[in-house]
């Protein structure tokens, strides 16, 4: 079946729903949000803890927060369709979908990729050893416990020590699984009370036939050990769900692995936008929602016929920086740039240069951490030469 809409948003998480809400409120025409899961709401739907929502009232839990976004989008007039998967492209702005009602081709005047992110599994991290049951990511853990009430295991190890890892530990304990340890390769991290935290430590082997029996670990100073457990949760190490972008020939940024966008969330494929964690791996739900809302104005401008800009100079990073979003400078950025460092630094100085010319330099207020993005004010981007070479960000 062939369908035409004005805006097609792929992914009903906070970013996609916030954008759809704004667009529908602004009278953008027919705004449709596709969600391949049975429930709309994105990751917050699976996060049964408080702290969601806008200050001064940040006490919604994840599912309530997710429901609120869905209600807002629907009330504004957007169509939110669950259980429908965008499987590929039939044209530059035409997506093929599969759902229980059949196959469709949906052509839109603007397509927005809001496909979110996932954690890299054990295999992608090349952790050697056997292939027993009991190996999962936080995403699978949350769905197992909250959605399907499946038993997890008796004794678990959590790999990672970012907020998501601490959340995994809490969910494990809440479901009756003892947490034997958390481990991270980083030199320090916040511990969970009652759970041993092993820093500078990596998993060198998974053991067990049928079911996991333990992990061989190694400390950076050479000490090795064995942790007995029947469950291991690999947390963090996020990667955007970029399949649809790649299948559509939408160029990716090598750092984020998400679609390359300018400060207006425009990809290099005319009419295709990308927002939220699809751009950079995991950020807080509020950040994703703010990105979605901020994309409304450029999407509306596109619908009204604004020309699609030339790509403009690339924004690049140098180690220890891992990535920056946006990835292109096509106009003055209106929102802070997000910048991620792979190494902790106590008083980082960020420098932006273009063709050997320093555009901007500043010592940031807080420390840089591999588990949290830095926010870089946007105003200096006005000084970039639109026809010049790449703008390079460094951290020292």
């Amino acid at each position: 079946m062939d369908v035409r809409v004005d805006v097609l948003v792929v992914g009903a998480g906070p970013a996609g729903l916030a954008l759809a809400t704004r667009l529908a409120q602004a009278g953008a025409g027919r705004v449709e949000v596709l969600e391949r899961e049975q429930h709309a709401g994105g990751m917050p739907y699976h996060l049964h803890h408080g702290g969601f929502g806008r200050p001064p009232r940040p006490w919604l839990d994840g599912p309530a927060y997710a429901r609120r976004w869905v209600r807002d989008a629907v009330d504004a007039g957007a169509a939110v369709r669950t259980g429908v998967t965008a499987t590929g492209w039939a044209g530059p702005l035409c997506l093929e979908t599969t759902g229980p009602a059949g196959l469709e081709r949906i052509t839109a005047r603007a397509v927005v990729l809001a496909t979110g992110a996932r954690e890299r599994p054990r295999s992608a991290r090349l952790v050697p050893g056997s292939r027993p049951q009991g190996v999962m990511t936080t995403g699978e853990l949350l769905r197992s416990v909250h959605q399907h009430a499946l038993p997890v295991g008796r004794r678990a190890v959590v790999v990672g020590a970012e907020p998501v890892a601490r959340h995994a530990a809490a969910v494990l304990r809440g479901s009756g699984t003892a947490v034997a340890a958390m481990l991270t390769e980083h030199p320090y991290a916040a511990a969970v009370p009652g759970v041993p935290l092993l820093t500078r430590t990596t998993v060198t082997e998974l053991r067990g036939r049928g079911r996991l029996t333990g992990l061989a670990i190694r400390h950076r100073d050479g000490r090795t050990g064995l942790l007995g457990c029947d469950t291991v949760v690999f947390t963090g190490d996020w990667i955007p769900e970029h399949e649809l972008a790649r299948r559509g020939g939408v160029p990716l940024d090598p750092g984020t692995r998400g679609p390359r966008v300018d400060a207006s969330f425009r990809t290099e494929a005319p009419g295709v936008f990308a927002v939220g964690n699809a751009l950079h791996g995991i950020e807080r739900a509020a950040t994703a929602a703010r990105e979605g809302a901020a994309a409304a104005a450029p999407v509306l401008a596109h619908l009204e016929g604004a020309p699609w800009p030339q790509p403009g100079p690339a924004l690049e990073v140098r180690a220890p920086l891992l990535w920056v979003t946006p990835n292109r400078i096509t106009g003055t950025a209106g929102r802070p740039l997000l910048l991620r460092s792979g190494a902790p630094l106590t008083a980082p100085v960020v420098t932006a240069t273009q063709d050997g010319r320093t555009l901007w330099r500043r010592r940031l207020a807080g420390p840089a951490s591999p588990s949290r993005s830095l926010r870089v004010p946007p105003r200096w981007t006005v000084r970039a030469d639109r026809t010049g070479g790449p703008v390079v960000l460094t951290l020292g």
Partner: protein
Amino acid sequence: MTVTRSGPLPDSGDPYDVTVVGAGVVGSAIARALARLPLRTALIDASDDVGSGTSKANTAILHTGFDAVPGSLESRLVRDGQRLLASYAAQSGIPVEPVGALLVAWNEEQLAALPALADKAVRNGYRSARILAAADVRSREPQLGPGVLGALHIPDESLICPWTTTLAYATQAVRAGVHLHLNCPVLSVTPGEPHTLTTGRGPLRTRHLVNAAGLYADDIDRFLGHADFTVTPRRGQLIVFDELARGLLRHILLPVPDARGKGVLVTPTVYGNVMLGPTAEDLDDKTDTGSTAEGLALLREKGRRILPALLDEEVTAVYAGLRAATGQEDYAIRAHPRQRYVTVGGIRSTGLTASMAIADHVVDLLAEGGLPVTGAREPDPVRMPNLGEAFPRPYRDAAMIAADPDYGRIVCHCERVTRGEIRDALASTVAPASPDGLRRRTRARGGRCQGFHCGAAVRALFEEARR
């Protein structure tokens, strides 16, 4: 239809006419061939599923047999088996993709070896191999790393699904009356008339015995007083890359074999992803299917040379399989007619291709031992669910979805596996005993996220079916 997984073995009073030990691709093919005969046949395996030993970690190539040892049993059985399996696959819905292979020469020594390999192919009855110049190779495979000097093109090497093949054989055998007993390890054999097998699930009596026990074929042989060979497990580690890497190559990229052995290949798979491997490590432990940091580092180093862009792609899976190496150049298929016993040993990577020809050969050998082989009739054909990306899958089939909306409910997003396919697999003749078995039947949770999105839902469906 009889498939058992626990409890004492059913005893009808009469012994089985034939028992096949080992439900890998070869044992299942033999059971299928025997199912054509009016006999009581059993197929037994130590594990909880068919094809869960060496067969599940095959490199998944339907070989032409161009590089076998000319005149060997393997050469003949691979050549015959290729034809038989290609035709069986077409009937049964086993996905096969004829992509062709390139044996890429990266140095002068390898380049110099190509004419002899082309000649060997002819002696193996394969006449379509051609030597290509470097420029031709590069135009066919633009992503190859620098330094390609030439290649031997084998246009008929194909990709196949090893899981569906084994499952099709076993399904057809069971539907035609073969008893499949899983979780049924053979602990000892008392030779006699009939033989009595002591299994983990009690005694099993059988007049004729086929040993297709793979890595354990030498153990079974010794129970019957034979010591023709020793099986050394040879580990092969493999890295499977994301389906998004599939566009990087068009052929199976085989190494030119040299003094250091067969080497590492890069191949597309019928599932639409790309596989790099295997390593070759002789071990002592017949259960050590773990991957190692050294093995993965070696594969990545080799892969970077062959197809540099591959290393930037996400890894979907890492696994290791054990091949049954015997130290001999040929299959070790031995008949002991007076004992009414046939050993099918030393079956290597080509065993998948040769499986149907091996089966026919084994039935002939059993006949020499007095097995009555008259009254054969073709069993009902099977139609297996398609796992191949080059063929229509349910999520893209409007008619299937219209008839049953469950084929439009995608559960595993990375691999686009629908609820209907999972339901069908759970209710199939040889149903999966574990989530891994379900994955080999449907691809569910076999994709890039490895269960981040779908793992819990797939497990819930599996657990629900088991209740």
